């Protein structure tokens, strides 16, 4: 049976035409109308099927490079001919392929996504070429990204491995092992396709259904919570707090606290991966030698709520950002809605906010 539901809730300010459909193969597709000159179409594949280990560290990233070159990479040229772009990324939440194009070119975007998802054989030359690209990519990684990665491994050990991967390991990856990983990732029950722009949501939903119903479904294992280590030694200039699912009350408090702290730090950075299980919010500064956090949580409460509300709202008001934020949540669970996070932020109590600030401070002890 085809399940479809309007996510817009009567009686709230969220009256944007938006249709989420769960196809018979388990794939979640979402179409949302938003006034804009361009449209964004994205596919998200959650990281939970085919969890990486030390032996397959970075396979999803390598596969992302390989998949993005579907049909010899000809899609990039077609998309760029209209001033559009195809981007690919592997994060802790999953692997994504994200297209933005003038709205008249939506069929091109959907054809491109379908081509990317089509399994094909991988050659060892491809592996070498893309592993070499990742080796070069590693040299350009920002210092804050590397520090965030360090915090994750301190908190979660091997389950907190950086999805970027190990370039030396990737250079020797066997095509067959990568092929297996591809098959595991291509699990419609852990995938989402999102289209946001000035579109007819019913017509686009029908197109998505026709185009992507053929992806074979596989078993969908429940997401296992990752095991927390007794983390010590968070690097200088960084503070960490744990979150639950994006729709947990605690997550709202930690987000608000982290953003408020970041706004008071010089040259600050902020990192949050909205994972359905446990995750981390990491806030820090690129200044060396700073471990003090001299601030009054009470004084930051209103600011923190405002910053968190604005951050989530910003993710929902632009076609590209909205397709990405909803896609990364829906691929993990078809019931995850950012509006719940927004409601939790708006209802955040002062006590919960102060507790979250204290957790950040406590991460240095």
């Amino acid at each position, binding site marked *: 049976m085809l399940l479809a539901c309007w996510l817009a809730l009567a009686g709230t300010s969220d009256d944007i035409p938006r249709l989420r459909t769960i196809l018979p193969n388990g794939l979640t597709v979402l179409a949302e109308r938003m006034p804009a*000159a*361009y449209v964004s179409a994205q596919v998200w594949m959650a990281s939970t099927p085919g969890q990486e280990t030390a032996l397959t560290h970075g396979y999803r990233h390598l596969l992302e490079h390989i998949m993005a070159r579907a049909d010899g*990479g000809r899609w*990039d*040229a077609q998309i*760029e*001919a*209209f*001033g*559009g*772009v*195809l981007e690919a990324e592997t994060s802790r939440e999953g692997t994504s392929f994200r297209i*933005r194009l*003038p709205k008249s070119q939506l069929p091109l975007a959907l054809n491109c996504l379908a081509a990317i998802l089509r399994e094909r054989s991988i050659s060892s030359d491809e592996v070498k*070429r893309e592993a*070499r*690209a990742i*080796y*070069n*990519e*590693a*040299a*350009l*990684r*920002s*210092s*804050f990204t590397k520090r965030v990665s360090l915090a994750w491994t301190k908190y979660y050990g091997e389950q907190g491995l950086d999805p970027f991967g190990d370039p030396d390991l990737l250079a020797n990856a066997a095509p067959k092992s990568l092929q297996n990983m591809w098959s595991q990732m291509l699990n419609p029950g852990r995938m989402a396709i999102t289209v946001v722009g000035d579109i007819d949501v019913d017509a686009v939903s029908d197109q998505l259904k026709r185009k992507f119903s053929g992806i074979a479904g596989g078993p969908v294992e429940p997401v296992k919570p990752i095991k927390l280590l007794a983390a010590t030694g968070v690097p200088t200039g960084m503070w960490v707090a744990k979150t639950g699912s994006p729709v947990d009350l605690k997550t709202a408090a930690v987000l608000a606290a982290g*953003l*408020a702290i*970041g*706004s*008071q730090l*010089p*040259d600050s950075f902020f990192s949050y991966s909205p994972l359905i299980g446990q995750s981390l919010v990491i806030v820090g500064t*690129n*200044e*060396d*030698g*700073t471990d003090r956090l001299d601030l009054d949580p009470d004084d930051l409460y209103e*600011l923190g709520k*405002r*910053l968190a509300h*604005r951050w989530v709202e910003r993710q929902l008001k632009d076609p590209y950002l909205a397709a990405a934020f909803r896609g990364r949540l829906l691929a993990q669970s078809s019931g995850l809605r950012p509006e719940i996070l927004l409601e939790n932020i708006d209802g955040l109590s002062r006590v919960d906010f102060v507790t979250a600030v204290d957790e950040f401070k406590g991460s240095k002890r």
Partner: protein
Amino acid sequence: MISFAILSLVASKGPQIHELLGSEGSGFQFAAVIAIPPEMDDVCCALQEAVRLLPDGTALHRRRAIADLNNGRGVQAWTTSDQVIIRASLDSGSITDAVTLAYGLIYRPLLEPREEAEFSSGWYTPLWQRLSRRQPSESETRDAWRYLVRNGKIHVVFGGPFAAGQSVSVWQGLMDAEPMTIRPADRPRPDGFPRFPAVNAAWLDGGVVAPSDSVPAAMVSALLLGQGKSSVLYRVAREEMGLSYRQEAFLWPRPAGWQPRIYLTSADPIPVAKLEQLKERMLAEVSGWNASDLNRAQQMLTENLLRNGVWSPWVIGPAGGTYNTAEDRIVLEALSQSNGAAYDANSLVTRAESLTLETVQAAAKSWLGHDWQVITANP
């Protein structure tokens, strides 16, 4: 947002103030461009330190107060080759707050010393950071800023929903109430030791294109040479020769106009011989451009300047290229005004659409006629 721009000279010793009046949202933005005088070319650490400390604000607007006004986005400040750029957007407050903050940042910044910064690594780092391994003293930092502000040519642009002349009037009021008391400063002492970035890089700079020259031809050739996976650099430098992971061609702001720049980075040192080979291959590609290549670049430019496409023909700082947002447009306006002309996206697009293939090819070939510069990471 842009309704019209006016140019007003505040005072004989003051900066040039420009206004962009409009109503895209209810916020106010400003951008300031300060030219770095040539005699400060070898003053890296003190100037870089001042720019790093600038977002701490002023006595009136400290970091916390700025966060309240602009939802935590703060003030951004960075250097290009020979300009300092300051930018901020306010979501609440008034044009008076925006002018007071800009005035304070330029003439009365806190510049209170803090811990030494870790230099960030990343794609654009070698371009915008003035690299030095020496930590300057507090007085050196203050003197460098004083010297810059006193000697540099300054252009400030204010944008937002306010009445024509309002920002100029507030600025004039601040000058009258607290006349600038900047004492002459000696030329700051040079650094001596450069600091090298963590990434190997190579670039090739073409001649600076003045606003009166064919900036659109330079923009279109930049997009064809080095923006996107269809570009010559991606296909040849990365795919064919395996020389780099990231490679771009773009226009880079200079006081006299826009400098065409090809830029690539690699985990390994880049051999000069291979770069010469790359140049030969690129010249051959340029000769083979056709009408569909030209059309692609024109489309990319239109999407970027008039809508919100990602392919920017220029790089203006550590964040890279620009989008068609109020925050980016105001920096482009400040940079354009410092070059003596207003920023007019519609005119640039119209002129780009009338370019011939031969004109664009000639611009690219002229650019590629220059020599490579190579820097090696941590030698």
